[in-house]
């Protein structure tokens, strides 16, 4: 009798503990690289961001110093009302960044791109993240992100070398560049590279380890 009831009680206790708040450490890398200041809702961006465009949520975030470049890249027509008409029928009012999210690891880029923006700490911002769609089974929303100080790097996820087999084909990803004026645009299209470690150097025998890495393709 006790053996059955104990886990039930225990489960009940755990359920009761649900209204708890657990703080999660945010990361710019796992976010959409923008967010909103908790103090007043002002738009805050990663120092590398030129623009973020998510058609599914009608989101368009722009660094004020790069508004013209963003409109050009998105082939948007800027209407007198301030709205942007983006090919495909989208009519969006861009959200212009007022703050720049400065962390220990991005201080250099922040100094370079701060312009008229004000610095803000990551803990003072509600970060936007790509979340699973509201309805299960629907595709994850795609966002296009243009970054400055990054360059698009190709990566060949194929072949066998020293027992490591890569499969997935040609990939690309944005990597930090030594040249601050370089730019890289993440398309929001994700490609998966599967890496399998075999027992033998010719990628035969038993599988020792397997891993999948997602690449946010760029151009």
């Amino acid at each position, binding site marked *: 009798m*006790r053996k059955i*009831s*104990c886990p039930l*009680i*225990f489960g009940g*206790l*755990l359920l*009761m*503990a649900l*209204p*708890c*708040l657990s*703080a*999660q*450490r*945010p990361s710019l*890398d*796992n976010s959409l*690289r923008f*967010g*909103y200041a*908790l*103090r*007043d*809702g002002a*738009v805050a961006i990663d120092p590398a961001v030129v623009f973020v465009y998510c058609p599914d*949520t*009608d*989101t368009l975030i722009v660094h004020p110093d790069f508004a013209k470049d963003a409109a050009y890249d998105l082939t948007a027509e800027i209407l007198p009302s301030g709205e942007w008409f983006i090919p495909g029928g989208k009519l969006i*009012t861009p*959200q212009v960044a007022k703050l720049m999210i400065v962390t220990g690891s991005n201080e250099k880029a922040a100094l370079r791109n701060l312009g008229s923006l004000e610095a803000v*700490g990551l*803990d*003072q911002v*509600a970060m*936007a*993240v*790509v*979340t*699973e*769609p*509201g309805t299960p089974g629907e595709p*994850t*929303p795609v966002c296009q992100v243009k970054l400055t100080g990054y360059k698009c790097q190709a990566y060949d996820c194929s072949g066998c*070398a*020293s*027992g*490591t087999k890569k499969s997935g084909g040609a990939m690309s*990803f*944005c*990597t930090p560049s030594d040249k601050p004026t370089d730019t890289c645009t*993440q398309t*929001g299209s*994700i490609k998966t590279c599967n*890496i399998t*470690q075999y027992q033998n150097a010719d990628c035969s025998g038993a599988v020792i380890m397997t891993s999948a*890495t*997602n*690449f*946010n393709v760029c151009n």
Partner: protein
Amino acid sequence: MKSTFWLGIGCLFAAASLCPLHAAERASLDHSLRFGYALEDGAVAIDPAVIYVYCPATDTLVVHPEYLKDAAAELAAEVLPTGEWFIPGGKLITPQTAKLMIVTASSEKAAIRNLGALTAVSLDRVALAVALPTEPGEPTPVCQTKLTGYKCKNFDCSGCSGGIQKTGGALTYCDKSDNPQDTCTQTGSFKTCIITTFTNADCTGSVLQSTTANYNSCQ
């Protein structure tokens, strides 16, 4: 040869870690500050139960528009002609009035009850706010949250019963109420309850399992 191989694998993972990947996450209101900002235009969006959220550390004050007076009274705030609120302790804050209500499958009833003039928005279209320490290891900022449709419940985290020992003392937490008029204010002060399962019914012998639950105290 072997070390070269592992170095290769390491480099591969290091290269992959450079990619700002967007891992889709399942958003949860329970682990948030119960408010956020719409990705479309930055409008403030709240959980259906929220009357107000006040975080002195980040100068954040989010209010349901129909409860402005109640919130001001409860925070002993003086509403200035400028729209700013003077809160005892020297805080001068402009409240952020909610325009949207975050509706999920589990909060539909409460949303219908409290929607008022707000517009419904789904969780995947909102950047949720979470409480985070300024630096890792520092205490998490304290936020005071008043909820409607909840009541403050006591929980005795002590004693031994059926091999389960609870340690932490008297706790409180906001629990859902059958009465929609009930209110509960989370103080933002957390108390910890440690639940340990022993092999013997009198809480002696080996420890089978131990879990820690944090309770957001209420009044």
